[in-house]
């Protein structure tokens, strides 16, 4: 049964009990009223009989005074009959005390007869003696009625007291028992629900248990509450997740923005430098021609060529760097012998360098599959550094390229015997626009940042070790899925 139904039964029972109790109280007080009326009847009758004695003893007969007295007497049976309702009449009939009402009625008749006699005397219809005789009879009747009335009324009142009070007690006990039972069932289902929630482990289990074991509104309440709590938690988790995601992304964006700003600054700076140098040199060439210093003019025009070459290399490097993040071209199996041959052709455009040797040691079973341009840029940048920063004091300068296949990766190492990287600048090796040898002015400072970007794109790793005896770069390239 639903909790709300149980609660409404409790309310109805309570209303019934209270009504019965109030009704009983009225009935009991009615019994007292009957006794009171009878006492009043006797009192007025005593007044009446005393008046009659006085008149007989010679006092003056005042009809209106007698009328008042008789009317007073008549009032009690009137009140009594008005007081009795259907239920009272029914009870009185059942316990055979109904004749008390007949007593009231005959009392009324006697009173009315007495009043009629007094009226007749007033209009001289009867004499004083006759009236007195009639009133004496009435007085006796009144008295008799009072005596007659007492017994049934006492019986009735006793009956009401004896029957209603136990009835009220029985009803109350029944009521208390029923209400107690109902409240117990309500509280036990609440307790059950609490126990169930406390002991069930998984959310899923709770969900099923709730629907099976807790029915009605409580089950509904639990389900709704659970859903609500669940969605609240989800909402909170979701908003926390979103917030941390926003914070993370904002941080990333800020960092990317700062990187980009730094890149733009460095790129524009390095692009501008050869241009402003060229501008100055061009002006000098004009002056040199004017002054006939043609050797100097020629030298400066060569310097301009060098500057323009630098600019060209820088533009190419910047483009490579910005493209390193994009997976643009098709992957292919890379032939390292061919790749190294092509790189050699580019770094030694005028044929092989007698002092500098590029050696290769390729030891792989399965070819490395990747975008060719990416691998080419990694290797070429490392190799061109080896050539650029060679140690001219050594007779044989070299770079050894070694490629080894591992279980799930390739290991590419380039070892040279060049001048090395100053150990104080190790942290800056892969940063953009960094150069470490002031006297060797060929580099753009971008080569190793390009290499790093490509390695990152391939989800690989790059490390290096360097001393004045040379530098070794090790690139770890995971096999592609």
């Amino acid at each position, binding site marked *: 049964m639903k909790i709300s139904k149980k609660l409404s039964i409790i309310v109805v029972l309570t209303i019934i009990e209270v009504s019965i109790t109030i009704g009983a109280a009225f009935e009991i007080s009615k019994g007292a009223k009957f006794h009171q009326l009878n006492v009043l009847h006797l009192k007025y009758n005593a007044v009446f009989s005393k008046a009659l004695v006085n008149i007989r003893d010679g006092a003056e007969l005042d009809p209106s005074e007698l009328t008042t007295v008789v009317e007073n007497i008549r009032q009690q049976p009137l009140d009594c009959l008005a007081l009795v309702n259907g239920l009272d009449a029914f009870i009185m009939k059942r316990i055979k005390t109904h004749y008390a009402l007949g007593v009231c009625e005959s009392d009324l008749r006697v009173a009315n007869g007495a009043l009629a006699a007094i009226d007749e005397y007033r209009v001289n219809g009867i004499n004083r003696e006759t009236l007195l005789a009639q009133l004496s009879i009435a007085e006796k009747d009144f008295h008799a009625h009072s005596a007659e009335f007492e017994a049934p009324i006492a019986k009735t009142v006793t009956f009401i007291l004896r029957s209603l009070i136990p009835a009220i007690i029985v009803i109350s006990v029944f009521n208390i028992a029923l209400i107690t039972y109902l409240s117990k069932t309500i509280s036990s289902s609440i307790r059950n629900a609490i126990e169930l929630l406390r002991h069930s482990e998984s959310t899923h289990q709770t969900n099923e248990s709730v629907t099976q074991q807790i029915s009605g509104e409580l089950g509904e309440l639990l389900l709704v509450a659970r859903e609500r709590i669940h969605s609240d938690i989800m909402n909170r988790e979701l908003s926390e997740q979103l917030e941390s995601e926003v914070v993370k992304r904002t941080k990333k964006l800020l960092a990317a923005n700062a990187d980009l700003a730094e890149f733009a*600054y460095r790129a524009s*700076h390095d692009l501008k430098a050869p241009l402003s*140098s060229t*501008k100055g040199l061009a002006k*000098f060439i004009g002056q040199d021609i004017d002054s006939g210093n043609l050797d100097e003019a020629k030298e400066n025009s060569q*310097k301009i060529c060098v500057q323009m070459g630098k600019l060209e290399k820088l533009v190419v490097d910047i483009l490579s760097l910005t493209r390193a993040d994009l997976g643009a071209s098709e992957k292919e199996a890379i032939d390292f012998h061919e790749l190294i041959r092509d790189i050699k052709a580019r770094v030694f455009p005028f044929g092989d360098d007698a002092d500098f040797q590029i050696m290769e040691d390729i030891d792989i079973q399965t070819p490395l599959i990747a975008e060719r341009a990416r691998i080419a840029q990694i290797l070429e940048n490392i190799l061109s550094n080896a050539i650029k920063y060679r140690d001219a004091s050594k007779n044989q300068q070299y770079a050894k390229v070694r490629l080894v296949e591992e279980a799930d990766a390739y290991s590419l190492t380039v070892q040279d015997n060049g001048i090395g990287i100053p150990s104080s600048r190790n942290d800056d090796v892969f940063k953009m626009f960094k150069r470490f040898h002031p006297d060797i*002015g060929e580099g753009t400072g971008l080569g190793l940042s390009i290499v790093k970007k490509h390695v990152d794109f391939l989800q690989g790793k790059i490390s290096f070790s360097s001393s004045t005896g040379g530098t070794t770069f090790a690139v770890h390239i995971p096999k592609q899925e």
Partner: protein
Amino acid sequence: MATASVLIVDDNEVDRYILRRLLDETSYDFKIFEEADGSTALKFLADYDVNKAKYPDLFPPLVIFLDINMPIMTGPEFLNEFGKLRRQIYANSCVVMMFTSSDRQDDIDEMLRFDFVGDYLVKGSFDADELARRIDSITSGT
């Protein structure tokens, strides 16, 4: 015969040449020292006794032209170190004039923070007359 000297600190050989030629065009007759990095420039200045003996009238240089972006020791790093060195040796006798292709306000502000940095030249933005004027104005105060 030169009566004073300047030091050009720049890793770019062409830029050193350009500045050298512009200095030659002015009416000044400077002895010109050159260094390709902040680190070597600092070393040159720190070797006070040796260089003072070598160039008794010309050392220390009157003006140091200093690039910002250099491979080993950058302009700002040089200025930090030179600030200490300057207090030890020459007091106020030497003024730095920045000589760089960066016209970024952050850089300008950062360099002019040093009280011995007298001026800030952007490469390619001046001729010999302008250079002479700038040198006049920073050296006349000393």
